């Protein structure tokens, strides 16, 4: 599948509909790549002789996708997935840059672990990996991690993942410390006590199914605390995986006040709600829980109107055994890297957005959240891009996925939009 071509290969991509959300470009022009960079869009540079011409008739060329949450399961959780399998899944999904949460085993709380992960990932020469360091040592919520050292090792932010952070003084000090050095603090808003023991959104469905509930206030109470602390400390905060309509409203109000804030939503939450749990389908066991239809609709609108910056795959490969158990005991999460593009296209089509606006939520906007040079197709930029057929239907099944995780709420369903070619640094890293 992967052609290991020299980085200095000259490539000419012909007949693609080139969409660059950052600049608003949407036109059929040739793309010229040399030395790993986009050297020209439109007119060929003088004397450009391609080593390879790709005929992309009927395809869209866009910046490689930027995913704000992809668990690669290394170190420590290789029985769920390996770096090899998940990096292959990333490029098969058109993802060329991804942030990985620190919820590995051990958590990413020391520079050695981060350097090792970066080195292992780089040696695979596929997508670019941007680790998020653990905000506290061992994600235990007590002691600050060495943010400076971790940032030097390559961490682009500090996240508490899904681990409880109950001591607000620790959060206050973490924000002050991070603000001192300009680090971004990533938090998934959920009050640990209010969510304790819960596995499903509190509402009619959890009542019918008798599933221990997680009330919406578990998110909004935590959001209030985070927003107050962010305002008081001046820390730059990224809110991960919003799940409630009230949460979206709180974020909109905080942004209107001028708070330095970004946020994301997981792709499943744009399409599914608590009713989809059905008869205890363990594939619907996600974190945060799937909430009700009004919440889902508010998330869809919030992403469209810019209150929410980006949509992420929240990729979490889980081994089959961990899903073949009762709902409440099932390991939460779903494989996602290869579904990010079709699911974001589906959202954009349903919201009647132009393709460029749809793609912004998985390219330029998440790149902005990470503060990285990615997600655009400007001349002189690294040639990270993907070609996809926006109309191609495919069935989500284990055979169609490169990820080691076979767990998805969309298993057996047809989705539309498939990546055909992915380039990183001008190298073809995937061609399907």
């Amino acid at each position, binding site marked *: 599948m992967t052609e290991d071509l020299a980085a200095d290969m000259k490539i000419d991509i012909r007949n693609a509909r080139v969409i660059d959300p950052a600049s608003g470009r949407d036109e059929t022009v040739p793309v010229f790549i040399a030395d790993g960079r986009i050297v020209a869009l439109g007119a060929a540079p003088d004397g450009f002789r391609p080593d390879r011409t790709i005929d992309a008739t009927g395809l869209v060329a866009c910046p490689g996708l930027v995913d704000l949450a992809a668990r690669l399961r290394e170190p420590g959780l290789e029985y769920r997935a390996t770096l090899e399998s998940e990096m292959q899944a990333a490029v098969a999904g058109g993802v060329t840059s991804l942030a990985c949460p620190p919820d590995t085993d051990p958590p990413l709380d020391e520079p050695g672990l981060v350097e090792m992960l970066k080195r292992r990932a780089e040696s695979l020469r596929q997508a670019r990996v941007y680790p998020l360091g653990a905000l506290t040592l061992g994600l235990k919520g007590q002691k600050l991690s060495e943010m400076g050292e971790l940032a030097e090792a390559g961490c682009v932010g500090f996240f508490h993942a899904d681990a409880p952070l109950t001591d607000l003084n620790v959060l206050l000090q973490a924000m002050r410390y991070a603000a001192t050095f300009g680090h971004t603090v990533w938090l998934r808003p959920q009050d640990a006590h209010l969510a304790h023991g819960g596995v499903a959104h509190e509402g009619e469905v*959890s*009542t019918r199914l008798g599933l221990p509930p997680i009330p919406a206030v578990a998110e909004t109470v935590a959001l209030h605390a985070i927003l107050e602390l962010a305002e008081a400390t001046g820390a730059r905060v990224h809110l991960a995986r919003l799940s409630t309509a009230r949460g979206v409203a709180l974020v909109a109000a905080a942004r209107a006040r001028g708070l330095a804030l970004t946020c994301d939503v997981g792709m499943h939450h744009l399409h599914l709600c608590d009713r989809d749990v059905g008869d205890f389908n363990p594939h619907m066991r996600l974190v945060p829980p799937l909430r009700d239809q009004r919440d889902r609709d508010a998330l869809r609108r919030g992403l469209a109107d810019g209150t929410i910056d980006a949509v992420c795959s929240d990729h979490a490969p889980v081994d089959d055994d961990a899903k073949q158990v009762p709902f409440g005991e099932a390991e939460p999460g779903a494989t996602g890297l290869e579904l990010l593009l079709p699911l974001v296209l589906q959202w954009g089509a349903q919201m009647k957005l132009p393709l460029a606006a749809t793609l912004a939520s998985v390219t330029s906007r998440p790149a902005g959240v990470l503060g990285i040079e990615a997600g655009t197709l400007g001349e002189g930029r690294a040639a990270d891009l993907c070609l996809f057929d926006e109309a191609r239907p495919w069935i989500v099944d284990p055979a169609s996925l490169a990820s080691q995780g076979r767990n998805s709420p969309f298993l057996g369903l047809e989705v539309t939009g498939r990546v055909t070619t992915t380039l990183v640094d001008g190298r073809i890293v995937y061609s399907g």
Partner: protein
Amino acid sequence: MGAGLQVDSQGRLVHLLTTEGLSAEMILHILDTASQFVSVNEREVKKVPLLRGKSIFNVFFENSTRTRTTFEIAAKRLSADVINLNIGSSSTTKGETLLDTVWNLQAMDADMFVVRHAEAGAPHLIARHVKPGVHVVNAGDGRHAHPTQGLLDMYTIRHYKRDFTRLVVAIVGDVLHSRVARSQIHALKTLGVPEVRVIGPKTLLPADVERLGVSVFHDMAAGLRDCDVVITLRLQNERMSGPLLPSAGEFHKAYGLTPEKLARAKPDAIVMHPGPLNRGVEIDSGVADGRHSVIMPQVTYGIAVRMAVMAILAGNA
């Protein structure tokens, strides 16, 4: 939810997982079948050969002497071979997964599993993975469902009140944690009971419970007014004090069923309780042992209803 799994394309019951989605016809068929077994149970020789040669495994991942015993008696009266397994803890702490346990037992030629599990949906999972022809009876899963209890309660109500379509039924107490209450509510609504009330403090009623078709009361006196049937729920010891309730005493004062409170109901109201009783907490002895109480008949009918469910599942009734 769950009706799709438990009834086949010909409308036959293949598993009993929940009362939700069961048709009124199916519920009445179970009750009618049970009434035939009530007479068997009154005979000198309380045994019929309907399930001779069948192996029924009582697989209890959560301890329960009472429910397990009633299933055991019911199976034995149908002449089945009964094997009891008290696994007693959740599958995840055992090393062996729930499905491995079930597959092993299935390899021993089980015909039916009676399953109790602390996790909601565990019987659904099992039902999805057993061979065709093997039946699953939910004997209680988390807070979700306890359908045979719900059905024996319907049997009891029908026995005393005959017509479901004129009744006011109140369910009092810890509805939040009660699989029994959920199974009762679905069955009562399906059978056409026009008014089902739940009575309790806001801490013990689940979110959006009115969406199940019940009316919500926090004031017990108002909730009991003109009731034909009063069902009190067991309050678990561990919930008597903590964040949900200040004390058993305060709960009793507001929601314990006393003769004075019961006087608000109709003069011929019946009082039910799924057992075991916490006397002096959710119910006073004067009520539990009084003339309105049908708590002991509930236990008796429970055997017949479980016989009916097993016989229907095995295809012999």
